[in-house]
């Protein structure tokens, strides 16, 4: 039996049974010493504290744990070992997240003091290097997207959508139509943030449902555009991995109605150098640097979402952008007459931008195209293999091939065995893998989304496939082993019952002590 799965590892994750940091408290231990101010200052000023208004003085020191330095280090290193980062696994199961290789050399650049020790308000003549990177990045993205100007203010993909919505708002305001245009249209397989971030600015959201083939129809779009249409936010390829061939018709319909079109390019990894936002008629687009452009995901950030616009929206971007003077020097340009203002403090998530810059420089134009080609090759290879696994399928006939990811379903297996997506996810942890289902709503039942990117070798993809194959075999022969998983992970099945109960949930250790004693 075991021979059948000869690629799978006899994996077990590190398990330290590590305490919560507060349990390591030992009065008197020190993690680090804060230097005292110089003797002369002490003589001159005294303790300083007496100068603080008594009403504002903290009466007791914060109740932090006291832990020696090595123990703190060990604690967090153990926690790190109890985390399955992309550097350790074939991280293709977190579909739509584009978890790819994050080159180590790029870490050295953001740990270089000439990058990390710059204050945002220091004189611009003293940060020409970073400004140059920002400026060149703008130029790179103009090539990648065809757009005419970029801003690096957005702190994430969702935040970039908020920036796009703000630009739409401002654009219609300038044209005296803001009151009237209060609807944003999106599609059901676009990222949910397209709707959510636009709603923050008070927009009404119209979602186009897909047709039986899996794609939204132009006819459906036509039925809802009007003088109330502010704009369209759409992903393409959609989260299903299907490229919408009618996209140019979509942007035309919206433009004819007087709206603007924003392209959510979170799923750009398979189309770099293949097709460009501007050519499809978009007025705006954004890219996630922490996805396609190789920023490490950092356990959930930092993220960055660069946003680009066409000429007519050039002056609407968030400020500042980085300009280049005739003498070749770079400067922060705040002179955008219709700017939506600031959407973030300072100039953008710099470390994420610097890493992405280095990644693009390493690959060049042909390298980026090869990234797309191989990402698509890998994806279709998986599609071919996974749909042969009993109980797995890829719904929707449209798109004979898929671009960079596929939304699959375990519906059949779930109906036949009771083993569904979440069970598989937990069982995969036993083999050292992740698997993510998909965004709500679950139009596709028991969904899972796989995005292999360009980073993983064929052997690694085969290993992942074999894990899926094995779990399917188990589901049909011995479902209990799947349903009681994980077996080789850090911990065992969690008691979720406290998490929705205000009397029991404990969002901090102090809260835990109050509610659960000991």
């Amino acid at each position: 039996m075991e021979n059948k799965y000869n690629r799978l590892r006899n994996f077990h994750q590190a398990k330290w049974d590590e305490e919560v940091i507060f349990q390591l408290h030992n009065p008197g231990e020190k993690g680090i010493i804060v230097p005292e101010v110089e003797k002369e200052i002490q003589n001159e000023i005294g303790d300083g504290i007496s100068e603080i208004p008594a009403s504002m003085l903290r009466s007791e020191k914060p109740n932090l744990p006291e832990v020696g330095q090595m123990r703190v280090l060990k604690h967090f290193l153990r926690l790190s070992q109890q985390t399955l980062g992309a550097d350790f696994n074939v991280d293709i199961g977190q579909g739509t997240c584009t978890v790819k290789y994050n080159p180590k050399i790029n870490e050295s650049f953001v740990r270089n003091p000439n990058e990390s020790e710059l204050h945002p308000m220091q004189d611009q003549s003293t940060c020409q290097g970073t400004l140059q990177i920002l400026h060149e990045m703008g130029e790179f993205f103009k090539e990648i997207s065809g757009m005419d100007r970029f801003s690096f203010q957005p702190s994430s993909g969702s935040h970039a959508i908020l920036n796009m919505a703000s630009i739409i708002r401002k654009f219609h305001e300038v044209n005296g139509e803001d009151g009237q245009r209060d609807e944003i249209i999106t599609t059901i397989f676009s990222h949910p943030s397209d709707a959510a971030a636009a709603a923050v600015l008070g927009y009404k959201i119209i979602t186009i449902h897909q047709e039986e083939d899996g794609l939204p129809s132009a006819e459906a779009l036509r039925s809802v555009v009007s003088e109330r249409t502010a704009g369209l936010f759409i992903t393409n390829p959609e989260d299903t991995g299907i490229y919408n061939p009618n996209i140019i018709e979509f942007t035309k319909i919206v433009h004819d109605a007087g709206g603007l079109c924003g392209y959510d390019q979170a799923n750009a990894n398979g189309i770099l150098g293949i097709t460009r936002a501007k050519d499809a008629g978009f007025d705006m687009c954004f890219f996630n640097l922490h996805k396609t452009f190789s920023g490490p995901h950092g356990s959930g950030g930092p993220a960055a979402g660069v946003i680009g616009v066409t000429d007519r929206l050039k002056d609407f971007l968030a400020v500042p952008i980085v300009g280049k003077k005739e003498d070749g020097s770079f400067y922060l340009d705040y002179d955008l007459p219709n700017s939506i203002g600031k959407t973030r403090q300072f100039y953008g998530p710099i470390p994420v931008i610097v890493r992405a810059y280095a990644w693009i420089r390493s690959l060049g134009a042909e390298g980026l195209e090869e990234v797309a080609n191989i990402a698509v090759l890998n994806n279709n290879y998986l599609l071919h293999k996974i749909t042969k696994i009993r109980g797995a399928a890829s719904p929707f006939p449209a798109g004979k091939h898929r671009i960079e990811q596929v939304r699959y379903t375990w519906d059949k297996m779930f109906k036949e065995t009771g083993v569904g997506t979440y069970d598989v996810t937990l069982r995969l942890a036993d083999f050292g893998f992740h698997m993510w289902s998909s965004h709500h709503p679950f139009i596709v039942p028991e969904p899972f989304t796989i995005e292999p990117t360009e980073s993983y070798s064929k052997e690694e993809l085969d290993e992942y496939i074999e894990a899926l194959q094995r779990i399917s075999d188990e589901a049909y022969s011995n479902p209990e082993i799947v349903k009681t998983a994980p077996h080789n992970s850090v911990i065992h099945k969690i008691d979720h019952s406290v998490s929705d109960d205000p009397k029991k949930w404990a969002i901090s250790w102090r809260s835990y002590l109050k509610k659960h004693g000991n």
Partner: protein
Amino acid sequence: MKTIGLIINPIAGMGGAVGLKGTDGVDTLKKAIQLGAVPTSGEKTKSTLREILDKSLEFRLLTCAGTMGEEAVREVGIDPELIEMDSSNKISAQTSIDAAKQMMKKKVDLLLFAGGDGTARNIVEAVGNEIPVLGIPTGVKIQSSAFSINPRSAGRICTAFINNNKIEFREGEVIDLDEDQYRKGNISTRLFGYLKIPFLKEHVQRLKSGTPKTEKYTQEAIANDLAERMSDDTFYLVGPGSTTKALVDHFGLQGSLLGVDVITSKKVIANDVNYCQILKLIESSNRVELIITPIGGQGFIFGRGNQQFTPELLSNINKDQIHILSTIQKLTSLRGQPFLIDTGNEVVNTKLSGYYRVTTGYHQSTVYKAIC
């Protein structure tokens, strides 16, 4: 400790195997038996019970004597408590109703019933939506959204219910065909009410995006949205369903769950009106609009469950006079299948087909296709 009630309609499903489109009525049953049908309902229920047994949980099981529960339960190795029933009576629709009423009296926490739409109809008549009920699909007609996907999944939901884990409730429509009409080739369905159905919260892998909403919350949000758009000089005909009823509730008014209510100027002027009353009202008003909701799992917007909207009436209504309300969950449950229209009049069907902007939340709508 939780108490689970179980009622098996032992004859459910017998008609189907021999092509009878249901087993309602004594004569039909006779015919089915003549045609060689054998009872399967109890057998199917056993796979539900095994799923629960596997988990070695603590619970009480209350069921009916003989083929209505006891036999199946004993066969999987559970010793059940039995409710008292008059054993002299033949098994009929009334037996299911009586049993369900007794179960409610005995305060079962969850009532499982095995059967089809006919049985669901009996259960809803007995207990309404007062206690959680879950249907084990063993009958011929399974159109009501009161059933689990298959008998085993009922077991899984029940297990989670006993464990107090990941359970939410939704309202499930009980729909049934008029079997006599159906056998003659005429489709005539009615909405008989709503049961309170437990379901497993789909496990949401937690990252990246917003959260799904509970059904009740969404219904409130939908009502808020529509209320903003309603005008005082229009007569609104509010169709059956809990999503539409939430709108009536929003105005603090008394609505009917299964009937058509008429609202104007934020007042209910008539409850549960029939076709003739509707026509009369329309004559006296400037503008009439319909507020309806699709039937969950099926997607009918006209022709099932709201026959008060006759083809005659609908021939005077245009698409822009129709507001469709639906929770996202309900739309999702259609798995991409379009809305269906079957008024019995081709011209009307065709006229009302096309895209609708369905209200799915506050300032949120989904464009969805209706076909005939």
